[in-house]
């Protein structure tokens, strides 16, 4: 793999929420795990509704001192839902602000999600709406020199799946509108960890995608989200076809930066494990198999 490794500070969410660990301390601990940068999440910015400039300044200074890059900025997002609840123009305006924030952090990527067809709308209308949104945000991406990556984590979703996101970015054909496949779409669900999600707990989920599906995404995936849940004694996570996914990245001709995330701290997974140690295992696994 020719790209850089960004650690998503989500590994420390339970420490932040439950124990009051600061973002700065999370960055410090992340840096000690041997990474190139971190993902910035919207909840770190003091949005109220606009970001707190002091927070941005403190975060940037902390990262500079740690010699870490803010490789990406993540915003919790459903573009289609936003267009339904507000309007297409309002969504474009918000994303332009997100792009400005990403530019302030000198981030390479802004990670968003296409979302789902809103209740009461036809999927075809969703596709048309997304194309209008893309047209509205592409100039802002050029101006900010930031690549917008549409995260694709749900195997069966029309627009949030890797296949759905791939079809959209191919059709739109803009170099700064790309995708970020999420290993979650390749996860093998188990009884202990079924394919259910907090935002939509009862929804039917499609089976995991194939490695060939992953390879098809790679030419449009400058950023890839490598999520992990638990490691065995050899440091492998068998919830995903990890070795095959990372080998595909390693052997690909394109450069891919990697967002590495450990999510096993969740109350329903392994809250008893030390998330800092497990996050270190995630970084080590990626270095071993994709490096």
């Amino acid at each position, binding site marked *: 793999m020719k790209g850089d490794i960004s650690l998503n500070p989500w590994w420390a*969410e*339970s420490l*932040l*929420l*439950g124990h*009051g660990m600061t973002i700065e301390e999370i960055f410090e601990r992340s840096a000690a795990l041997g990474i190139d940068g971190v993902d910035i*999440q*919207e*909840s770190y*910015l*003091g*949005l*109220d*509704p606009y970001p707190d400039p002091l927070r941005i300044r403190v975060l940037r200074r902390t990262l500079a001192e740690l010699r870490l890059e803010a490789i990406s900025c993540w*915003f*919790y*997002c*459903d*573009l289609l*839902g*936003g267009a*339904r*609840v*507000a309007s297409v123009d*309002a*969504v474009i305006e*918000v994303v332009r602000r997100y792009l400005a924030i990403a530019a302030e952090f000198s981030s390479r990527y802004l990670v968003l*999600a296409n*979302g789902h067809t*809103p*209740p*009461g709308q036809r999927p075809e209308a969703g596709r048309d709406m997304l194309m209008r949104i893309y047209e509205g945000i592409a100039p802002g991406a050029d101006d900010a020199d930031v690549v917008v990556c549409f995260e694709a984590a749900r195997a069966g979703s029309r627009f949030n799946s890797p296949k759905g996101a791939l079809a959209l970015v191919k059709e739109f054909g803009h170099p700064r509108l790309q995708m970020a496949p999420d290993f*979650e779409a390749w*996860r093998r669900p188990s009884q202990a*960890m079924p*394919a*259910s*999600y*907090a*935002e*939509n*707990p009862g929804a039917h989920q499609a089976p995991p995608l194939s490695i060939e599906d992953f390879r098809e995404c790679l030419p449009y995936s400058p950023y890839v989200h490598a999520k992990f*849940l638990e490691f065995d004694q050899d440091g492998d996570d068998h919830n995903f076809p990890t070795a095959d996914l990372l080998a595909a990245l390693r052997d690909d001709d394109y450069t891919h930066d990697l967002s590495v995330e450990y*999510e096993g701290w*969740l*109350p*329903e*997974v392994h809250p008893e494990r030390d998330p800092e140690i497990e996050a270190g295992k995630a970084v080590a696994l990626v270095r071993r198999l994709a490096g």
Partner: protein
Amino acid sequence: MPIGSVNCIREGMLGNELVNIAPAAGGHQPIGYRIALRNQFFHGSRPLGWIRRLSVTMDGVTSPEEDIRFALREHVFPIEQVRQTSEIWWQPRELAYLMVRLPGGAAPGPHEVSCHLEVSSFVFTPFVDRNDLYPAIAVELTRTLTTDNDGTALR
């Protein structure tokens, strides 16, 4: 959103205080009580309108929504207004207070207190789903709290 069915770190969300609210000048009896609620939701930086419904139950008696106020920093909102608010955001780890009208306040001693929240499943943070197009996700928080004053400590 993460895998599974949990959208917050529940432990510690309900604070450990149950404080009676003193009346305005001239009164003698507490007019209600106050409990603390810490934002420990995942992706928890949210406009208040993300909260779609909220109720408080003490010792099995649920207070009607119109008897509850949501206090954040210098703002105090009726719940109906919380649902409509997009310009004021609740930050991760930030404490809010639920002020519940109850003539006489909470009697001295332990009380079983529950807070029932319903938050929107709509996930584009700056926008509030005022028409409830998207289903809400229920969160139930329960804790035994003990009054530690006689109703004169808090105005």
